[in-house]
């Protein structure tokens, strides 16, 4: 399993690095990759049915409890199949849609990265790996949304999506850390047993809030929904992929995954029902007032996500079943509608539904497939959506209290979403063809085939729900609910309340659709309330943070090196001094201090002389040279006290530092000779305090016997465990190799920073 996921990433980067070496027309062959994954997961589905849940264990960093464990249960397989299956269709579709894009290789790299990280996330059993893959999805979706990076709108919306989901990522990490702290494990399947313990714990509500914030930002729940509509600046295949089955479902996945652990019957339910309920109504109301094709779909997506969150919040057996079913239903019809939107935009180059009509003649197949998708969205009988709608009404009607209100809420949402689905999936094909500037481009089969497959599945599962139910949904339900169920999906429930409600929904949805032109401009009237919108409030506060950061940076980084050094040294002196004088009994013992050897004395005198030169001179070159002398004297100290590795490193660093100084010598400002007595006094005071403190600490440390366990461990095990005789180097490359790796990343960042700053300046100078 690890190998497959790593392979997805490796292949993605290979595509990126291939540049334009692969002609556009061969990109459709890459569909084989997600398709192969799809069949691979299908194979596991049969394994699951015959043998039950599987746990694939790979140790990654066992000392920290971080493992690459993959858990294959119904829920993760449902998501994996959606991600790889719809992924295959999107790969295929995008190869045609972006045929003329010069950056198609980048696109496929981002898409592959995204798919790999989504798969990694839904398959992981370890909190840390889930988080890592979660952040990778944010990162790769940033690239995907900002794919048209030459348009400002694209860049802004990519930033917006990244910041909102990234913010949620922080909270998610905090929640995970708390959870791991409480349970003592990072593994989700081990946590299942301690669900009651977690729910009793003091931190429980905090954990819930943090994990919810993570899930809500990713799944575009109110008030964090605003990144989703603006993410429509992405190319349509991206929208179809991210907003039907993957990115926005990641939050849903987290909620479903933690349902058995965190579902406590009170906080969980109320928070999710409130947020989900508000989101589903909010998204639904907004959707029918939109005129942009993708915008309509974006708001219906928000609404559908709200429905799923709401259902998970209700938390009865039926509600969970409905939620799991609705995940599949929504993925199928929403992806189809997005693909339709893409085809229409490809054909007529506009997305305003007021100006699109009569495309039926040019693309009858697309029209029929889109109609099916829209019908499924509205819940017309014989489509999969109908079954979902039934389940939702059944759930709300069965609630002990508030049943009528919640049913009404669901009814309104469904009516509005159904109407919006018709607007996006039916309206563009009806009516008389307006006159377009360019002739309508007829889509070829690569564009419409994925759409037809999705719509066919919507019908197939609608007529024979048992196929989806028995093969996958049942297992997904078990993974969430942790128990068997009597519920199964059926086509016909008989004439009951639920059926009547469905009829009402369909009737009103059609009415709203027919009279669309009379009300769709109404929303303009309330645009003056824009300053109250969550987007505005959150973005204004974000700007405030930015301003504060700017002010703070100006204050602390004022460009004078001497001030930086002063601040750092004063701070360290205060902090260490406080700790030193308050917590350690003060005693000085002179007998441990040995006499100077003659070479030590020589070095000491050398350093003092060099320091004197540095302080007295008024030439930059002499100052640099004498600083170099101090550095070399330091190396000699290391050599004398048996640290040759340190001495070597210090030696080379010193050479390079002197070189650096010499390079910039002529650019340095005028050599500053400070005459002000007060400044000199302050500097003397600070340096005497600092030096005195270090001396005291050094002498004090002689009193305490040093703890040798660690150094003894390294000395004894360096050769046994790591086959190296140089303990220092073995620590660097083996025992604490992780630190070294992260340090080399830090070095890289520093180099990129210097390079960027200098290049930026050079470019600016050229521009002048």
């Amino acid at each position, binding site marked *: 399993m690890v190998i497959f996921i790593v392979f997805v990433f490796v292949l993605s980067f290979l595509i990126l690095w291939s540049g334009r070496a692969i002609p556009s027309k061969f990109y459709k062959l890459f569909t084989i990759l997600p398709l192969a994954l799809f069949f691979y997961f299908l194979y596991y589905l049969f394994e699951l049915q015959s043998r039950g849940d599987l746990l694939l264990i790979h140790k990654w960093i066992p000392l920290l409890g971080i493992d690459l464990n993959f858990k294959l249960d119904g829920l993760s397989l449902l998501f994996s199949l959606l991600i790889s299956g719809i992924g295959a269709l999107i790969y295929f579709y995008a190869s045609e849609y972006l045929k003329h894009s010069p950056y198609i290789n980048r696109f496929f790299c981002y898409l592959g990265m995204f798919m790999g990280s989504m798969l990694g996330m839904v398959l992981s059993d370890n909190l840390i790996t889930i988080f890592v893959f979660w952040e990778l999805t944010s990162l790769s979706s940033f690239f995907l949304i900002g794919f048209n990076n030459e348009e400002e709108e694209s860049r802004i919306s990519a930033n917006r999506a990244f910041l909102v989901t990234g913010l949620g990522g922080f909270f998610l990490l905090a929640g995970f850390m708390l959870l791991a702290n409480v349970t003592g494990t990072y593994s989700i399947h081990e946590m299942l047993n301690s669900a009651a313990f977690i729910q009793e714990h003091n931190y429980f509500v905090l954990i819930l809030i943090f994990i919810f914030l993570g899930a809500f930002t990713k799944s575009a729940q109110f008030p964090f929904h605003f990144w989703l509509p603006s993410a429509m600046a992405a190319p349509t295949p991206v929208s179809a992929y991210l907003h039907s089955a993957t990115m926005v479902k990641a939050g849903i996945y987290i909620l479903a995954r933690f349902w058995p652990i965190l579902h406590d019957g009170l906080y969980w339910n109320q928070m999710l029902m409130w947020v989900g309920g508000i989101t589903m109504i909010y998204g639904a109301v907004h959707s029918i007032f939109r005129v942009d094709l993708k915008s309509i779909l974006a708001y219906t997506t928000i609404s559908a996500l709200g429905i799923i969150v709401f259902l998970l919040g209700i938390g009865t057996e039926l509600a969970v079943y409905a939620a799991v079913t609705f995940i599949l239903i929504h993925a199928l019809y929403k992806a189809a509608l997005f693909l339709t939107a893409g085809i229409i935009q490809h054909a007529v180059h506009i997305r305003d539904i007021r100006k699109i009509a009569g495309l039926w003649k040019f693309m009858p197949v697309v029209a029929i497939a889109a109609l099916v998708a829209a019908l499924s969205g509205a819940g017309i009988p014989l489509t999969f959506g109908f079954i979902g709608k039934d389940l939702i009404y059944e759930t709300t009607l069965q609630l002990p209290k508030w049943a009528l209100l919640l049913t009404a809420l669901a009814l309104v949402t469904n009516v509005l979403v159904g109407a919006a689905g018709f607007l996006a999936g039916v309206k563009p094909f009806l009516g008389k063809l307006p006159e377009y500037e360019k002739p309508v481009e007829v889509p070829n089969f690569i564009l419409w085939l994925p759409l037809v497959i999705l719509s066919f599945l919507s019908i197939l599962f609608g007529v024979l729900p048992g196929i989806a139910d028995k093969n996958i949904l049942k297992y997904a339900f078990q993974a969430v609910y942790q128990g068997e169920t009597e519920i199964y999906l059926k086509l016909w429930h008989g004439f009951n309340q639920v059926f009547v409600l469905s009829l009402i929904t369909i009737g009103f949805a059609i009415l709203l659709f027919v009279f669309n032109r009379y009300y769709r401009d109404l929303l303009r009237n309330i645009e003056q309330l824009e300053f109250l919108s969550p987007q505005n409030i959150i973005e204004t506060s974000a700007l405030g943070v930015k301003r504060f950061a700017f002010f703070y940076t100006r204050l602390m980084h004022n460009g004078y090196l001497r001030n930086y050094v002063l601040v750092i040294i004063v701070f360290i002196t205060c902090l260490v001094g406080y700790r030193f004088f308050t917590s350690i009994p003060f005693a000085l013992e002179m007998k441990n201090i040995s006499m100077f050897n003659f070479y030590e004395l020589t070095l000491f005198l050398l350093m003092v002389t060099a320091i004197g030169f540095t302080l007295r001179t008024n030439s930059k070159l002499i100052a640099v040279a004498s600083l170099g002398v101090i550095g070399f004297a330091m190396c000699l100290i290391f050599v004398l006290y048996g640290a040759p590795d340190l001495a070597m490193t210090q030696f080379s660093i010193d050479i390079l530092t002197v070189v650096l100084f010499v390079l910039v010598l002529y650019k340095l400002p005028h050599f500053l000779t400070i005459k002000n007595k007060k400044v000199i006094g302050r500097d003397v005071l600070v340096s005497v305090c600092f030096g005195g403190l270090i001396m005291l600490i050094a002498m004090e440390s002689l009193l305490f016997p040093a703890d040798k366990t660690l150094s003894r461990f390294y000395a004894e095990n360096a050769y046994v465990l790591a086959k190296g005789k140089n303990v220092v180097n073995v620590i660097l*490359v*083996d025992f604490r190799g992780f630190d*070294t*790796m992260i340090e080399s990343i830090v070095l890289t960042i520093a180099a990129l920073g210097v*390079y960027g700053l200098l290049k930026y300046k050079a470019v600016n100078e050229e521009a002048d």
Partner: protein
Amino acid sequence: MKKQTKKDKRQNQTFKEFDLIILRTATNYLIPLLLMASIFVMLRGHNLSGGGFVGGLIASIAFVLHSFAHSTRRTLMLFRTSPKFLIPIGLSISFLSAFLPVLKGKPFFTGLWSSEPVAVIGSIGTALFFDLGVYLVVIGVTLTILLSIKENV
């Protein structure tokens, strides 16, 4: 002040054109020696003093010396593209050497060692490749910083 700087620069240039013969000649012999020394230091690091970090620094000193004796442009021409490409390469080598054990079913960063020692180098393990990655990163970072400062001054 400005005038003075200009004058300094002019002096610098004449200085470079005529009086660097000794430095250049010495450099021609020193650079191969320094580079070999850096690789030697890196390889012996596991058992004796040395290691990728020091090795990388020594190698960078060799290139810095070259850039002083000739010019930054000519030093950059020694690399096909630019020293900053050594950074991602080095990081990837480090990461892969740490990741290799995972593919063999062992924890991340487990040291893997060849059973047979190789001539000159001794036994080969993932730690050696890790150190090689550090070596390359250090060269890349140092040269990127120093040479871009040198170019811009």
